[in-house]
């Protein structure tokens, strides 16, 4: 088996993906079963519903050095809890506004609806987002890791 080749660049984006347990996560599983390929730059965090997300979690991901954040949820008519994806969309809009104020390109945050069991959709969307972030470069938020002691 041949290892997948990635573009010859030093920059490997770090992306956090919040995945809804229902349709979107079934997409992740199907992608695995069907051996769909997508770049390994995304680290998935499984949540019971994207409606559980709030601005704090998204900003925290950027604070900790994520170059991009993906919200992988369910289609509007297929939300397990009816209103979860709707509130996720509100949080998404709010977070994009906050990122813009902070001088971070709002397109570093994406919301994708993955239909039930569609591993191909998941792989395609993740690949194109990773490609987009690779092109955009690393996040402009470079936080000092060391601790400065006050005078």
């Amino acid at each position, binding site marked *: 088996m041949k290892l997948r080749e990635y573009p010859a660049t030093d920059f490997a984006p770090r992306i956090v993906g919040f995945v809804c347990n229902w349709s979107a996560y079934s997409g992740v599983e199907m992608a695995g079963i069907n051996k769909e390929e997508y770049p390994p730059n995304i680290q998935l965090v499984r949540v019971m519903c994207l409606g559980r997300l*709030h*601005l*704090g*979690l998204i*900003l*925290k991901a*950027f*604070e900790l050095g994520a170059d991009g954040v993906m919200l992988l949820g369910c289609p509007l008519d297929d939300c397990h809890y009816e209103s979860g994806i709707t509130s996720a969309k509100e949080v998404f809009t*709010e977070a994009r*506004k*906050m990122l*813009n*104020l*902070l*001088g971070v390109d709002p397109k570093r945050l994406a919301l994708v609806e993955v239909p039930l069991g569609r591993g191909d959709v998941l792989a395609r969307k993740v690949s194109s987002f990773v490609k987009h972030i690779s092109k955009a470069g690393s996040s*402009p*938020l*470079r*936080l*000092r890791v060391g*601790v*400065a*002691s*006050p*005078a």
Partner: protein
Amino acid sequence: MDTRAYSCLDCGKCTVACPISQYDPHYSPRMVVYSALRGHKAQLLSNSQLWSCITCSMCEERCQSGVQYTELIKLLRTEAHGLGETGQCTHGGALQSLMHIMTADHLSQNRLGWVDKRLKTATEAETLYFVGCQPYFDVLFADIGVKTLGIAKGAVKILNSLGIVPALLPNERCCGHDLLWAGDTEHFARLAEHNLKEISKAKAKRVVTTCPECYLTLKVEYPRYFGSLDFEVVHISQLLAERIAAGELKFRRSAKKVTYHDPCRLGRFSGIYDEPRAVINAIPKLELVEMPRSRTSALCCGTQAWMNCGTINKQIQAERLREASATGADVLLTSCPKCQIHFKCALHDGRLGVGIEIEDITSLAARALIV
């Protein structure tokens, strides 16, 4: 730092005055001081109640021994923070992340989108307007109808009408007030460092703020960490009162009945009580009715430093809103964007049954101003 805790007479007036103790029988400032003096360090620093104090300074107002309780809390929290302890972040920690992100060395924020063509601003000027986190608040709290940018626009309008073109910092950071009061002095110092650099780049000799927290932090806390400042810090109500007395500002009539809520950082911490009232009295037909608890006895807006906000804090807010409403006023005026946020949040609960408008003194004055 001497907090005078050793002077405590164990009389308990602090606990009687404390708004938190009113609703939480387990919380007692007297016991906190007692434990601190007895050296019950571990118990004190790991106690979740350390983070419940709303640092309103009501206890200090009542204490006849001059114990600086809020200073003690700040020091204890700094120690606890060093041990990895923290309060319960409200709003999902979004504000904490926001403040941490702002410590980044290279930021190019888009925070001045609110400046419209009618407002004259500069990049360098003798007077600088320190906006604070208002652009962020208006996004974060849009769901409860918070519009703090009206304060910022109003402030620039007022300054312009006085012939002042203020400098605005495109990369101003949070002043760090809430990190400092949560015991995170490292991140606070970084934010302060950035702000001091930006202010000196703008060649400002005077910094005007509309937020009492920014006022107190810039004026009192920054010099503690970085030595004396080469600029003066004023709250807009001080500037307004001074220019009103000089007859430089004229207002059109506004037939309303208002009551004024003293924010703790402006009132008890800075002793600015008369200036906001002078602004209110300068507006013709604007009638000021005081709440029973005003000035040094003003009740706090209920919560602090974006943490540990719960039912107890809501009860304090409800109590204050009922008190304001009982005066018969149409509008509850305040001069702090945070008080505005906290009161609007409490009003959002329909079960409260209180209908009163919340407005900031700066935006009210700007609206009534005759240019």
